């Protein structure tokens, strides 16, 4: 019973982080602050959800798997965020403008027009 309560509580906290990350992704003005919002959802949101699910796990193998999933997602999200941020920097340097062309109705904003 107490374990169910812990699961509800922790996954709810995780969901709050996911919602906040999504809102940030939609609302923040440039690539870097959007990445900041996105990685919060991945790191803390998924972390809390995995932690909440630990209380439903029958054995230690499941707990270890949940921890591994979180660690791998953390590693991938961190790496991807760094790469996207760097690509946005290079993009800005090569154009000499604001890297966030998506905010403006720029006909070249589509991915295929990018370098």
């Amino acid at each position: 019973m107490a374990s169910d309560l812990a699961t509800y509580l922790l996954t709810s906290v995780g969901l709050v982080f996911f919602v906040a990350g999504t809102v940030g992704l939609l609302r923040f003005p440039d690539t870097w602050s959007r990445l900041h919002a996105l990685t919060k959802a991945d790191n803390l949101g998924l972390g809390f959800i995995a932690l909440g699910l630990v209380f439903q796990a029958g054995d230690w193998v499941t707990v270890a798997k949940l921890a591994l999933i979180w660690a791998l997602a953390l590693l991938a999200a961190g790496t991807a965020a760094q790469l996207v941020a760097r690509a946005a920097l290079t993009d800005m340097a090569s154009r000499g403008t604001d890297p966030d062309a998506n905010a403006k109705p720029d006909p070249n904003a589509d991915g295929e027009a990018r370098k």
Partner: protein
Amino acid sequence: MSGVFFDAVLCALILAAALAAVAGRGLFRAVVFFILYGVLVATAWLRLDAIDVALAEAAIGAGLTGVLLLGAVARLARTGARAHDPPLAVVLTAGLAATGMTAVLGWSFLELPPPQGLQEAVAASLPDSGVENPVTAVLLNFRAWDTLLESIVLLAALIGVWSLTRDEAWGAPAGIPQHVRPGGVLSTFGRVLPPIGVLIGVYLVWAGASRAGGAFQGGTVLAAVILLAAMAGVLRPPRVTARRWRMALVAGPVVFLLAGLAGLGAGAFLTIPPVHAKPLILTIEAALTLSIAVTLALAVLGPPEDAAAAPSPDAKGEER
């Protein structure tokens, strides 16, 4: 009740992702939604308890095809080719054809008599197949022909990719030269992840004998490991003329064919006698996994493009 709600949301998301991939503007966006679509469809297969299909969809449909399409988009941008939006008549015709096809499929599904299925036949013969996973039993024993031909089709696809190489680039490492900052995030990532990926890939093949998994799923994970290592600069992309890599390419079909020919002794081509079934299937799967991994990785890397890295023309006749 909550299961129905989950399924309804999942179906809505699949339809939305499909629509965004087809109807949205911009190739890059379309590819991103296609990948998202693959992940959602894999989740749907999971909900239907088809774990083998879910694994294949996630690894091949979303992952590998996604990388392939992203590479194609980047290549279009590199060569300066602009993708033009097709005229409205083409869009409408394609949309009508697709809708009609869906309607016909839906109608025939509803009109068909309740499927008898082959589940009972497969279950009855499972003890003779050498493996406990019915999917693997069908793929490598009961319907081995299909799988053998599939492995050869993969090889043919790679030959098609390679045939796009310009003459002066032949013999160079596959794909475009990769630029990686030494000691950067990507090169670290490319060192940390491959050991885990190899473990998961090999596990999927081994588990395929008794649970969900198999040569195609495991091979795709291993292909992703090769690709990541190549993109992170940890592994030099193989030259298309390298003999060892070519042997890895044909190992699967060759071992499969040899096993099939050995079956002639037991009656007919591809007969797998129950006594030797398990070791035989595991051997075929191991060789197939190697070939699938290398073939898929090389197909995604693409034809060699770096003419400067190709051997000089007079040395070209000699294979290394």
